[in-house]
């Protein structure tokens, strides 16, 4: 079980801010493929992964990063602070 959190338009498209996912995905990319296959709202959220950023346990990571030992995966668009 892994916590998955969504922000901004990813949260809006998927329709929830946080969920627990039962997965054996080895990498972020594997997890995205699993979610995308689940339901159209996930497919809509991850349609353009070039616009999606990832953090593993609150640290920025790439789509090829392994999920082993990770408790929380966050998906969000490029940040717009300041």
């Amino acid at each position, binding site marked *: 079980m892994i916590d998955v*959190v969504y*922000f*901004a*338009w990813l*949260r809006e498209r998927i329709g929830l801010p946080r969920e627990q996912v039962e997965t054996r995905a080895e990498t972020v990319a594997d997890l995205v493929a699993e979610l995308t296959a689940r339901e159209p709202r996930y497919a809509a959220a991850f349609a353009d992964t070039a616009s999606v950023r990832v*953090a593993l346990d*609150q*640290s*920025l990571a790439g789509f090829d990063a392994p999920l082993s030992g990770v408790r*929380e995966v*966050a998906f*969000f*668009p*490029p*940040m*717009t*602070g*300041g």
Partner: protein
Amino acid sequence: MLRVDAAAFDPGAELNAFSAGLTTAGAVVSFTGIVRDTPAGLAAMEIEHYPAMTGPAIAEMQTTAARRWDLAASLVIHRHGRLEPGETIMMVATAAPHRAAAFAATEYLMDYLKSRAPFWKKEIARDGTETWVAATPEDEDALSRWD
């Protein structure tokens, strides 16, 4: 010093409080960001953030800035939630013995806050249209000058 809060703050009072404690640093630079109206007419800006990540990410930027430049102190205040035009979104201030360091460190923190602190802005127009503010290539390019 770092504060992430939905509450409004007083930039002038923060600047004075920040400056008050300085004994060796004669140069203080501040940046204040204010919600601007848009051509379409802006009702409000909503700022979402990732609470578990925001504090550590900004604190790391401040630590890096303090390592790169001779700083006496740095301050970051960033709001989240709903803001109306004219309200202050955020503020950065740095203090240093020399002004070049204070200017550079404040620009560095701004560039990193723009693109590496987990905030997302949504503009709500007066006609109700909601638009997520897109990151710009310029904001991403601004980071490369610090490599």
